[in-house]
């Protein structure tokens, strides 16, 4: 046996007491802060669910066309989304889609600035790397339950859990992309008198964009893989269907919902990838 240096039981007790204290004293404030996000999310979900299905399909096809400029891609994406509807999961799919859009949007808002800051400040990098490791490996239920106690069951804890899990690759790849920008190119821009701000937005970010797009792509994939976990804390949608299928031993329900998740994953993946590819081709030219 390893010698007992601190009492594990007391440590656990102290953590429990701390969470209890947070819940009784700060939960109302935290809920008030999260309320605007919830309203935005509810609005987005209502919009997607109440919009006619063909409008959503057309919108997705239009986005696919704009980012990829390939007719086949655009048609394929439309068909894929119709596939989700054909499986009878349109409503659940739209719920998951709105959650994904919100989680990805928040991840981009958090991840890209953090990645840029990490590339410029080496001390921040030294602090952030272990934090990112913890975020990616800590079993999500460990922080899910306290988050549920603070924010209540529902969409907000689901979004928080998803962002915690999904944002690290975007931070890492943004950081990497900026640091990989050729030193000579930067020097040349400096020689032409570019300010640090101009260097960042005119040289570093555009050249790092393929990497950043790969990061966004990874983030959406990881966010999708969280939907089943998110459903355990009250997020509706495809993950909930999978959970129902598992708990009720209805293999068919689980499998069909799983396929719909895969369809959404392919959708997100192809669209973000083709955008990244176009960036790269543009950069090569």
């Amino acid at each position: 046996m390893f010698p007992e240096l601190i009492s594990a039981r007391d440590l656990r007790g102290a953590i429990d007491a701390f969470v209890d204290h947070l819940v009784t004293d700060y939960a109302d404030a935290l809920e008030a802060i999260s309320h605007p996000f919830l309203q935005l999310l509810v609005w987005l979900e209502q919009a997607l669910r109440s919009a006619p299905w063909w409008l959503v399909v057309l919108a997705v096809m239009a986005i696919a066309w704009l980012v990829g400029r390939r007719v086949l891609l655009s048609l394929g994406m439309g068909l894929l989304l119709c596939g989700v509807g054909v499986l009878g999961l349109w409503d659940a799919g739209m719920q998951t889609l709105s959650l994904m859009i919100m989680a990805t949007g928040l991840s981009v808002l958090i991840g890209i600035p953090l990645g840029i800051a990490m590339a410029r400040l080496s001390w921040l990098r030294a602090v952030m790397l272990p934090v990112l490791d913890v975020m990616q490996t800590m079993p999500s239920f460990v922080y899910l339950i306290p988050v549920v106690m603070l924010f209540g069951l529902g969409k907000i804890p689901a979004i928080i859990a998803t962002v915690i899990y999904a944002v690290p690759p975007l931070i890492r790849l943004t950081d990497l992309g900026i640091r990989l920008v050729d030193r000579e190119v930067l020097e040349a821009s400096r020689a032409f008198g570019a300010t640090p701000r101009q260097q960042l937005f005119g040289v570093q970010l555009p050249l790092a964009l393929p990497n950043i797009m790969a990061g966004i792509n990874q983030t959406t994939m990881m966010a999708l893989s969280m939907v089943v976990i998110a459903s355990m804390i009250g997020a509706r949608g495809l993950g909930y269907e999978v959970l129902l299928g598992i708990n009720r031993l209805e293999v068919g329900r689980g499998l069909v919902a799983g396929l719909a998740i895969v369809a959404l994953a392919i959708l997100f993946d192809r669209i973000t990838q083709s955008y990244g590819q176009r960036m790269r081709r543009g950069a090569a030219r």
Partner: protein
Amino acid sequence: MISPTLSPAGAPAWPQVRAHVHAHVRAHVRLRRAAGRLAAALALGGAACAASAAGAPACEIDRPVRFGGMNWESNLVLVEVERAIVEHGYGCRTEVLPTETLPALAALTRGDLDINTEVWLNSVADPWNKAEATGRVRRAGDLYMGGEAWFIPRYTAERLPELKSAADLPRFKDEFEDPEEPGKGRFYGCPAGWGCEVVSSNLYRALGLQDSYTLYSPGTGAAQKAALTAAYKRKQNVVFYYWYPTPLVGSMDLVKLELPPYDKDAQECLTSPDCKDPKPSAYPENPVFTALNTGFEKQAPTLAKFFAGISVPLPAMDETLAHMEETGDEAQAVAEWFLKNKQDIWTKWVPAEVAARVQAAL
């Protein structure tokens, strides 16, 4: 299975005892390798081992006894109590497979599990009857009478003195507001996919709550408990389904909402997922019993007899679960507490010499 982090049941019971045995074995190996001058010590160590081996009876089956580790507290604690008795009293090895109600029943039917310690009959009436009809599972002993109800906290009852019965809920929907569905209240039902979810949702329809409340099925029992505990600590109004005996009901001051009196036909319809026209009815008392795989029963008749004789008075169960909630101990520690403090209960389940061996191991 999907929430392994929640089930401490996978860990072996009584690790300190096992570590002790391992230490013995390691000591043996070291001694054998040592020179002859340690022969006396070897003889001493061997004698000690032989003595402890003579005290342990042979197990009826030469594989671990497999328990279904359904992840609610009363089941976890009783499984650990039974494991302690089976290991120390009957000299068997045991293991627990973390699982959930319906998968556990399927596994018991297949023979992948030997014992489902707690089967809550009303929640799984249909699947249980089907499983029993195969002849591969049997209802062994009745543990206690559990129950289910729709609850509000005492402070909510004081704030809303007119809210007495579940049928009054629509009038008070604004008091239980669901932030995600403005204009509706939120009723916390049973976790998704659990047997009780069917009854909750049928009852919700029978009471005509569709227009005024969302039926909120938490994804897991842990998330449900976390949300309810947090709401209770913050003195928020909640209305929810829960079952007892549980640490949650034992440790909170709750008031049951009245439901129309129990009606057998109405209840039968409520438990069916295809119920066309549900009528409200109170929850019946819920017999909680132990189910055994019949193959296991034939292989190990003595153990089967032990499992058939187990029963726990409801107040003792409440006390045990409240102890669990207060101390925050794991199921194993609570089981140990139970074995030490409730000897008058468990010694009735086993012959005197078995009880003596378990007491010696405590």
